[in-house]
């Protein structure tokens, strides 16, 4: 963090020497992901590669499913910052996982607009159907259930995020159908975003 933009936090005497112990299997980006990362780094000034740290973590997470300390160490190498810098960021943002998650991560919006439309009951039904509490993964490793804060789709409440997709207007009585649909047919059963107009191409 910085209290003043001119103070050089993260450099020189402000740099943390905290080391991250090894955890998980060895991690190295695939050639394709490394290439993607370098393309993103090029969007920032050459001495500001750290700006790409979120993108670097998304790539590592996509490659491995979650972020181990070994992955964080590799990201630090690739970005050119300390492992402490990476850990600092990973532990702050909610979209990074430091434990394995299921194939589908269900994120039920719990904030006011969705709550007014029954989001509490959606979470309750999902938890019962999966036999888990929010924050846990079901026994088959297929679903992880999370309650999250406002997803910005309040007019289509309650909204449930499924990995990078949206599922809108989820009624509590229909959650078992959603789970069965995902098991059988994958993300094609999701509503997606209602703003897409029928019949349009890419």
């Amino acid at each position, binding site marked *: 963090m*910085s209290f003043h*933009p001119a103070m050089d936090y993260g450099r020189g005497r402000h740099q943390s020497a905290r080391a991250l112990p090894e955890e998980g299997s060895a991690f190295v980006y695939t050639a394709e992901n490394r290439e993607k990362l370098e393309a993103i780094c090029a969007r920032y000034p050459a001495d500001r590669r750290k700006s790409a740290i979120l993108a670097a973590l998304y790539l590592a997470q996509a490659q491995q499913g979650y972020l181990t300390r070994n992955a964080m160490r590799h990201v630090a190498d690739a970005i050119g910052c300390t492992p402490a810098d990476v850990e600092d*960021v990973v532990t*702050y943002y909610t979209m990074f996982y430091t434990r394995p998650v299921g194939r589908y991560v269900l994120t039920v919006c719990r904030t006011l*607009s969705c709550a*007014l439309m029954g989001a509490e*009951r959606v979470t309750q039904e999902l938890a019962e159907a999966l036999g888990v509490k929010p924050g846990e993964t079901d026994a088959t490793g297929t679903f992880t259930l999370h309650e999250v804060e*406002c997803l910005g789709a*309040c007019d289509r409440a309650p909204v449930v995020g499924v990995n990078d997709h949206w599922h809108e207007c989820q009624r509590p009585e229909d959650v078992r159908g959603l789970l069965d649909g995902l098991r059988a047919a994958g993300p094609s059963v999701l509503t997606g975003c209602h703003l897409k107009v029928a019949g349009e191409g*890419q």
Partner: protein
Amino acid sequence: MDPLLTRHVREPNSFTLDFYTQHGGYAAIRKALAMTPDAVVETVKASGLRGRGGAGFPTGMKWQFVDKKSAKPRYICCNADESEPGTFKDHVLMERNPHLLFEGCLIGCYAIGAKVAYIYIRGEFYHVQEVLERELEKARAAGLIGTNIFGSGFDCEIYVHRGAGAYEAGEETALIESLEGKRAQPRLKPPFPAVEGLYGCPTAVNNVETLCNVPLILEHGAEWFAKLGPEKNGGPKLYCLSGHVKRPGVYEASMSTTMRELVYDPRFGGGIRDDRALKCVIPGGSSVPVLLPDQLDIAASFDGVAAAGSLLGSAGIIVMDETTCMVWAAENLLHFYRHESCGKCTPCREGGAWLHNILCKIERGEGQMKDLDLLLSVAGNIAGKTLCAFGDAGATPVLTTVKTFRAEYEAHIREGRCTVPAPWRVAARAHAGAH
């Protein structure tokens, strides 16, 4: 007023470059390039455009404050973090009319002398980011973004930067920190971003909707824009209606429209679902004081809502009917503020959790009358005592509900239970408080 920003958004392929140029797109940047940068700033100033992110600060002044004497590069950061509860307007603009945003970014960059604009989009908007990246690529291939745009010698790049789940990243200095690859935590101000922003360089941080208004101003003129609404509240405005209205959604209207029209008029919200009685409205995202049913005959403008004792904020209008328990609503929002506090300032980090704990205790039926004064005391010790407006934002739901619905809090405490149980809630939800 006919929609201007969202006129075509329901039409097929409205997001494409072809569609946008067929409807007169990228004419405003040509016009701007024929003017001096200072003249562009003056035009935006004369239009009276006020920032659509929440604070309503005049955009032209923000641009004028950008330090032009500095030898460092300058930047525009477009705030597309859209994470204020009840707000979902920028989403529509980015997904259905992205080239309008790009054109606004280009004009902004030209005006302040920047060569790069970063669009900081929240991580949860992945499908929106895909649209932006794809359309940016098309605009780049068509020579609308890049070097020597329209042969004017003006170079400008626009990049999308994906966040990763943090409400605080919507605060302008926290957004800059996040863009620099750090935790999204606010900076001490001054210096303001206009002097030392991204990478310590002069920076303007503008909301998506704000930048989308800029091409309209260049195209039709400052006076035309100012006359679209009441004095000092000109231009079109997007309103987000959610909660217990019949027709939730994004609506574009003039700021002379009243709050009552927005909630009840069939063109907008269409009234309360199941024709129940209205309990209250939060007019500007989660962090502003509530308006009661008899306070809705006001212009839904920055100044109109402020005169009624609340704020237009991000124009996220959350409507609650008579089945809503206000202790529960406050608890729901304080859960949000407790979870999203960045942790930098003690009053907000600790105070938000204390407030939430006390609200949970009252919700569980274990409250005492003295807890009400304690709530007001803790909230009063957060507001105004933090680096950014987040502290005030978190204190507001408590202050406004205790003040306006004190009898409801007292009934909870007296009877040891929720006195407004709603069928859409989970009755036995354990408000344990601790996380």
